[in-house]
């Protein structure tokens, strides 16, 4: 069994370009955050973060070259994270759908603000 055949060695250039790309994206996201796009700020920031995450996962973590099983496992975990958030929000965002009164806390502020 030849070991070399199995272990992909990423060229130095790839690593460095990915590193540079990550830096650039970081700068972009910081700069963009000072411009106001309303709700789009969140979307933009998340898109950039996701691009960065994908770069790290594919190149630094070798998902691109490794066993595709790892990619599947990792994606499944992300799916379940979104399941958690989305299904929970089906509750927390929908409480007023029948009766307004059910959505609001009776006392808005925590007791620590009472003093």
């Amino acid at each position, binding site marked *: 069994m030849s070991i070399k055949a199995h272990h992909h060695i990423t060229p130095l250039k790839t690593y460095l370009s990915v590193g540079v790309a990550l830096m650039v994206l970081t700068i972009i996201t910081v700069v963009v955050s000072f411009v106001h796009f309303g709700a789009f700020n969140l979307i933009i920031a998340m898109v950039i973060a996701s691009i960065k995450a994908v770069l790290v996962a594919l190149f630094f973590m070798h998902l691109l070259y490794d066993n595709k099983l790892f990619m599947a496992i990792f994606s499944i975990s992300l799916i379940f994270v979104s399941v958690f958030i989305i299904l929970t929000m089906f509750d927390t965002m929908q409480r007023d759908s*029948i009766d307004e009164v059910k959505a609001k806390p009776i006392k808005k502020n925590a007791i620590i603000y009472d003093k």
Partner: protein
Amino acid sequence: MSGNKTEVEKNYLNDQKGIKSWLLTLDHKRIGILYLYSIMFFFFIGGMSALLIRLELIRPQEVIVGADTYNQLFTLHGAIMIFLFIIPGIPAILGNFVLPLMIGAKDVAFPKLNLASWYVYIFGSLFAVYSLVTGAVDTGWTFYTPYSTSTDTSVVSMTLGAFILGFSSIFTGINFIVTIHKLRAPGMTWFKMPLFVWASYATAIIQVLATPVLGITLLLLIAERLLGIGIFDPAMGGDPVLYQHFFWFYSHPAVYIMILPGMGIISEVIAVFSKKKIFGYNAIAFSSLGIALVSFLVWGHHMFTSGQSEFAAMIFSFLTFLVGIPSGIKMFNWLATLYKGSITFETPMLYALSFMFLFAIGGFTGIMLGALSVDVHLHDTYFVVAHFHYVMMGGTVMAFLAGLHYWWPKIWGRTYNEFWARIAAFLIFVGFNVTFFSQFILGAKGMPRRYYTYLDQYQPLHAFSSVGAFVIGAGFFIMAFYLIHAMVRGKRIGRNPWGALTLEWTTTSPPSHHNFEEIPVVKNGPYDFDRIRVENDKWIYKEE
């Protein structure tokens, strides 16, 4: 290859001697045994607290303990049974022992991690039980906020104990997934794996995906208690219903951590004791995976009256029903497997048949609870208590007992007394139905759970139920005796007393340290009873 004599002389039990060789062992079989002792010990404590609960409920008002003690009792009972007994139970004892054997591996992928998981289990258990007993935790096993953030009992240390236990579960899960992926014997393709292995695989997926969420939930609970971070406690601006989401995101999938391995055992036992090829192998294998994945989408059915949004309730109810389908598919497949078999009724089969009977009832009542309007009436009553005992005790525990009796000869190389085993099985089955069927009626009549005293109209059924509990107790008592007797004095037995075709039966009983004399090469399916049978350890093929 090796004669009968050497089998007795050299095996994993006696190839090394002394306490140290056990406490530092990396052999998956020995670790399984360590788990067997410790989990049975906690099951005993959990069972005793159940008997105290039933004693207290035999009539209204104080019988033996006061209100606070009662509340601690059912917390102790629930927490031990769930976290210390039933979740680790089948994977850690039987899975550890037979899974590598079944796929023809020499060990699990990470033996050290395996041993670590046992130590973590022991440490976490002692921690949890210590705080349950001395710290008087009385929240129920669900730790609902804000009760759990405001009571002055040791909720923090109890939850830390449960947090630690989570690691044990995760370690086992990681080990099984990797073992199944990477250590199968040559020729053991995915679809030649025994169904118990499939079930363990599905279970491991849930363990790995869900347990960390319990971890963070408990950490947040601790943070809420110590720092008042304002996530679950309304006084701090938090939302108690959110806690319930967090908790059940783990704890609903957890109920399938409990049942799936049990279903795996049932598939083995039914096929072997009817000497029939399993019906619908693929359907059973895939339904395990299906249950595992869909189980993550239904947690909100524990919260239909909690004040969650009607929209969420609708979605959760709908998805809940979808999990019922794969369970049904399994039931029907087992039924079809019996058709035209050659059925015998040794103890493992008796438990498997009890499983069919009891799990059907448990499952159907689950469907009642999943129906939104009916659950509003039944939620938090004894109906729910009866439901989950039917699925957990009637389902998982019966399956566990089936597996225990099925593999007991393999584990010890000796067999138990069939006569007493049948008596015990009978007592447990009857006692169980007496105890818990009456609770369906109690619950539907409106008797709320976690009640230390109750109105007089419920008394007859409660008393009836209590009697049943002691019958179960008697059954287990007998079982403890004959199983322990079997370990040391039981009749010696060959490789394959049941004539099964899975790999663990091709090696000696008990297996040697390295499991197999030679790594087996797999050519047949695990249930090819249409062309192979085993008699006196000899494989007989139907000539084609």
